């Protein structure tokens, strides 16, 4: 079952948060910033809930290929 929060994440426009972390609770961005730990702690403090973290890409096109030696 897909949560309300995931539906919000896939549908919302987060372009104003490019290159930043966001913390989502239900259907709201409750904190954002450049450090995931600070964002997550702030969101927990504000809401009393466990937020879901995301990082919004700033790249024009994501071409992701990681080679691990």
């Amino acid at each position, binding site marked *: 079952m897909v949560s309300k929060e995931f539906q919000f*994440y896939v549908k919302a426009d987060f372009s104003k948060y490019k290159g930043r972390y966001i913390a989502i609770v239900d259907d709201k961005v409750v904190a954002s910033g450049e450090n995931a*730990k600070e964002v997550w702690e702030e969101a927990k403090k504000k809401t009393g809930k466990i937020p879901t973290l995301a*990082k919004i890409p700033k790249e024009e096109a994501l071409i*992701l*290929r990681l080679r*691990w030696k």
Partner: protein
Amino acid sequence: MEIEFDFKEEESGLFGRILRPVARIILVNGEIELPEHVYIDSGADVTLISKSVGDILGFKIDDKDEVTEIKGVGERGVPIIVKKVKIKVGGKLFEARVAWALVEEVPLLLGRTDVFNLFDICFMKNEKTVFRD
């Protein structure tokens, strides 16, 4: 177990609106549970998290940790330490190695190592990703 995740529509300067495969996973380290949205990347050897995401999980650089490099497109490497965590996808919890980047400038990725061996992962025509174990 089967779980589906819709693709996420995002803006690309080159291609306009573009659909990208994403998932909600939970990283578990001891008592800490961190839900995060990640890009599903079949081209990534390993799941990748940034420095400050590792800080949330309580990761420390130990004497026995080996700092190594991973590379993406191009030659610029990213310093990482391989750590073990538990990952929850849907109702399935499993142990996996992740690459903890020692920098912030990386995306959050779900890669193949210790993950793609556990699920059939099907990308359904720009619509959704299905995980089936």
